[in-house]
């Protein structure tokens, strides 16, 4: 279970707004997070991962306090180790596809399995510049999974995939999520995009 109760002022083109979320995410759940552009969906994921600080609030993951602004507690992203698939992929230009996974884990069998899931086995020596958008997006998801996180955060994770690839990948991901009992939060601007995989939802309004 992850209990989140946070508040953060956001600055946007339309002036200042407040991102205020109080929500419990059951362990092993797959939550679809949706809402209009600029509502703070990405910021919310980054707050949970420890990449951005909220103004107020608490985050408790499986009984461990990750964040308590009043008590001055904020665990680093390295300690939280939440898998994060970034919207812009955030791939390392200097690393090949395989090196991305090797940077995250030493488990070579796990790497082979991930490559198979992403159907990227033939592209292991390619750097991001030489991968298509869809291949880059799959690599971003696989890299986040490589650390076998208990919590997986995905920002618009399937936006660059064709329907067939998307269905196959999702089926494989669901197996892995179940196997490692991962709690998953996936952001989408499209309310219906993640309907088939989510068992819970959170709407963030602007």
């Amino acid at each position: 279970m992850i209990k989140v109760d946070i508040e953060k002022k956001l600055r946007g083109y339309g002036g200042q707004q407040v991102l205020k979320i109080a929500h419990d995410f059951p362990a092993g759940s797959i939550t679809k997070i949706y809402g209009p552009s600029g509502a703070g969906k990405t910021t919310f994921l980054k707050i949970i991962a420890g990449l951005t600080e909220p103004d107020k609030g608490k985050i408790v993951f499986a009984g461990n306090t990750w964040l308590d602004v009043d008590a001055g507690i904020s665990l680093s992203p390295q300690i939280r180790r939440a898998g994060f698939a970034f919207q812009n992929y955030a791939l390392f230009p200097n690393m090949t596809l395989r090196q991305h996974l090797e940077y995250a884990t030493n488990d070579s069998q796990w790497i082979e399995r991930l490559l198979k899931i992403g159907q990227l086995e033939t592209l292991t020596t390619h750097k991001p510049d030489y991968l298509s958008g869809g291949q880059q997006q799959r690599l971003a998801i696989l890299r986040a999974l490589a650390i076998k996180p208990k919590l997986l955060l995905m920002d618009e994770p399937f936006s660059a995939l064709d329907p067939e690839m998307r269905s196959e990948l999702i089926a494989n991901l669901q197996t892995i999520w179940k196997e490692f009992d991962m709690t998953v939060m996936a952001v989408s601007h499209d309310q219906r995009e993640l309907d088939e995989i989510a068992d819970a939802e959170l709407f963030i309004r602007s």
Partner: protein
Amino acid sequence: MDLTPIWLTLKLAGITTLVLLIVGLPLAYWLSRGRSIIKIILEAIITMPLVLPPSVLGFYLLMAFSPQHGIGGWLQKALNVQLVFSFPGLVLASVIYSMPFMIGPIKSALQQLPVSLVQASYTLGKSQRETFMKVLLPNIRASVLTAAILTFAHTIGEFGVVLMIGGNIPGVTRVASIAVYDSVENMDYRSANAYSLTLFCITFVMVVSVFIFNKYKAKSPLE
């Protein structure tokens, strides 16, 4: 032509570049992260040699290094080290004088990398140091090489600061730029030309190398 000034110049430029690589990389990284008033002031101080006349910088360094004042006095008493009119003093002055040429390009390259690269590395459990060594540094390699070559070439071309701090001691502080000046003063135009041509050729090759390297290698990592 006495080759000692050329050798001394290359030695000074090499040591200065090496020291600035060691000091400059972490300093540029620190400066590239966030903007505090302390960082702004420090960056302004680092940039001053670009806009100050070398003689002004040389004068203040001479005052600071002098055994009668501040740091120079302390070094003389505590460690028996003399900076004025010595090679170590020249190195220290050159490090200060050439610092903007090392810090500027590296800091700018670091700032151009998307912040999400660092964030992605952190979420994989990697430390700040590991992220710098394995993610940031390899992606700014071209800028680091450019900065190192520019620092080397700029140090070769020093005159004002070197003259103020080192004077003209053959074999110790008489670098090639001083040798040119000295030769002209003595109406020895043949030696002046030989030193000048050597300096011109060395720096020309280095600057051309930077341009060629940048043409093929130095582009934004995300291009």
